[in-house]
């Protein structure tokens, strides 16, 4: 899976390295939820700057992580959505309403620290 998941303080930080297949998206989702249970993290940051497409499937999977995270007391922030990807998503009606968003990793950590 082209994703690295790091634990930093009480946050989980997942950095996507390249385009993901649907299978890899599900692996990421499951891995994050497993790590969350193990470390009782208070926040999850998923850096999607490397994704040049975020379609309905990816969007749904990210929302699932966020919803499940909320039930376990963790807040999820998606960071690094590229401008053209944001335009395509908003056109498509994929607003990731259930998820927090931030410009990049730094802004994401700042948001969680507040």
């Amino acid at each position, binding site marked *: 899976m082209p994703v690295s998941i790091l634990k930093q303080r009480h946050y989980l930080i997942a950095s996507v390295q390249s*385009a993901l*297949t649907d*299978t890899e998206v599900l692996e990421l989702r499951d891995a994050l939820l497993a790590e969350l249970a193990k470390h009782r993290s208070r926040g999850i940051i998923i850096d999607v700057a490397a994704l040049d497409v975020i379609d*309905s499937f990816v969007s749904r999977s990210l929302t699932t992580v966020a919803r499940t995270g909320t039930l376990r007391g963790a807040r999820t922030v998606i960071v690094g959505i590229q401008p*053209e990807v944001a335009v395509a998503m908003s056109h*498509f*009606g994929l607003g990731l309403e259930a998820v927090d968003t931030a410009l990049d990793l730094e802004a994401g950590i700042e948001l969680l620290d507040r």
Partner: protein
Amino acid sequence: MSEEIRVTVAADADTVVARQKGRELALRLGFTRTDATFIATAISEIGRNIWTHAGEGEIVLCGLSEDGREGIIVIARDKGPGIADVDAVMRDQLSSDKGLGMGLWGARKLMDEVTIVSERGKGTTVTMKKWRGFAFDEVRQLLGEGGAEQRAPRLGLRIDVSNVAEALEQLEDTPRR
């Protein structure tokens, strides 16, 4: 028709290949990065429909030139079970939990034209087109309908109005070089 790119789709990784090739072709054809992202996203959606519902199929990508407009055409074909009610999946983004409806509904939002031909037991073909934005439309607007006709009397020209209209008509019909 320009170069034609074919991608066999039998698994999720093939969809990734198809959308990458779609993006590359769109950029080569002069689409903006945002438009190329729209096209790649639409391919991702319909590509998923192929391997989840039909098991196997193909995606064909090609440049398009029609009526003086330029664009891209994406054809997704499979020999799967087909769609019972095409209108319903196009109309309703939530018509299928498996994402079929979302895929087609979304593709329609992202592309300019989407048509689906589907027959139970025979398979489905989804054809999507997107046109490249063009300044010609603005010039057309500038000329306006009957714009010159209205101006001619004001200028005191002795112009046969039907000929101006005809000239304009021909102007608009003239293929661009």
